[in-house]
């Protein structure tokens, strides 16, 4: 005795329909809500980098503005020559909130054997992409990093236990670990912003402390128009205008993280 394939499939189909009906009965609308994309409301911050305006000089200015404001230590050129590090340690300890790199490193997967002449020597300004689907948030065991409703991938340094899962998770190398007390390596400490301690991970927070005061991020302000900042959910915001007017690329979009820093090349 048993049940033949045809009856089994019929029964399974019926059960499936019943399951949907049961879901509708218990949790009306939940199934659709889980499947559908959430409506774009409120604020969603994003940055557009206009590489036509971004010279190395402008990039250096942006980096300086950010790193001096947020007390980011400089392991490459320590303020005290006695603290100079070996090349190996420089690389390992370097703290990056915003930095530059070449096309082949920044846009892995976009390389081709014969490329556009202008890409030669072009240094792209890189920062945390404040992904819509941030892998760093998913792997954090303490929820020290989390996604704010306005899209900023935020760090709660108080909760960070320094496990560095997020660094392994981030495909953009936007996170750095404090291998040592950073204070001796900060040339001029900004007393209005905390430093970090040994053993925590840090990254770009899109100047959330400046946004709270209605200011633009420090790098955007220092860029003189090369960086465009705004609300993606607002039809007439500068970022939306830039995205409408230009073809833009993003870093490693094929990974599904949905990065929100766009590049006009």
């Amino acid at each position, binding site marked *: 005795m048993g049940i033949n394939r045809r009856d089994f499939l019929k029964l399974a189909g019926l059960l499936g329909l019943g399951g949907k009906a049961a879901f509708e009965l218990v949790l009306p609308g939940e199934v659709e809500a889980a499947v559908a994309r959430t409506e774009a409301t409120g604020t969603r911050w994003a940055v557009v980098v206009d590489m036509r305006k971004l010279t190395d000089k402008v990039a250096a200015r942006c980096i300086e503005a950010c790193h001096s404001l947020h007390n980011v230590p400089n392991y490459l050129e320590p303020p005290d020559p006695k603290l100079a590090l070996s090349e190996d340690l420089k690389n390992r300890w370097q703290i990056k909130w915003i930095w530059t790199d070449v096309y082949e490193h920044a846009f892995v997967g976009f390389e081709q054997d014969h490329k556009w002449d202008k890409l030669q020597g072009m240094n792209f300004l890189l920062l945390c992409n404040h992904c819509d689907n941030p892998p760093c948030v998913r792997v954090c065991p303490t929820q020290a990093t989390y996604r*704010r409703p306005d899209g900023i991938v935020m760090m*709660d*340094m*108080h909760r960070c236990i320094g496990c560095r899962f997020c660094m392994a998770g981030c495909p953009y190398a936007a996170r750095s670990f404090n291998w040592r007390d950073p204070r001796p390596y900060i040339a001029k400490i900004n*007393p209005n912003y905390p430093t*970090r301690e040994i053993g925590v991970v840090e990254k770009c927070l899109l100047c959330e402390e400046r946004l709270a005061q209605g200011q633009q991020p420090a790098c955007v302000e220092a860029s003189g128009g090369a960086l465009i900042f705004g609300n993606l959910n607002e039809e007439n915001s500068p970022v939306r205008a830039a995205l409408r007017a230009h073809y833009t690329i993003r870093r490693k979009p094929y990974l599904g993280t949905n990065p929100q820093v766009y590049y006009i090349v």
Partner: protein
Amino acid sequence: MADYKNEFGWFAPKPTVEKKIYSLKAVAVGLGIFLVVFGAPLLLNMGQVHPVPQPSLDTPAIQKLAEKERQCVEPTEWMRANHMQLLWDWREQVVRTGERYYTTSQGKKVLASLSNNCMECHSNKSQFCDQCHNYVAVAPNCWGCHLPKEQNVAKAEGK
């Protein structure tokens, strides 16, 4: 009748063991070392009088205020007992919800920030915070990241 048989035979009395401290010398030496090591803090501090901490309120920012306005965000007594909890709550509120202002029990809105509000008035960490913290031997880890701003004030006063 429970012990009608034990390992020494039928109704045999259990052999008694003499109760005494074996190797009394070694035990006494060990006990002595133990007492000295664990009693050292007590012995060393015996008879010493530690003055009750007097956190100083003498900072330029507080002096500038009128006598009536010299009031922390909450009453002094409450702050003395609960400032640590308040700072924890501020930390959660500011970092996790993004709400940067705290409404006091008097209905006043103040910036919820250790470095940028508390330390503006109490710009004398070593004379204010550290006084009690050292007295009760607690080491808050705030200062690993947040800056007390004390040096700047000292420099400004020197000029």
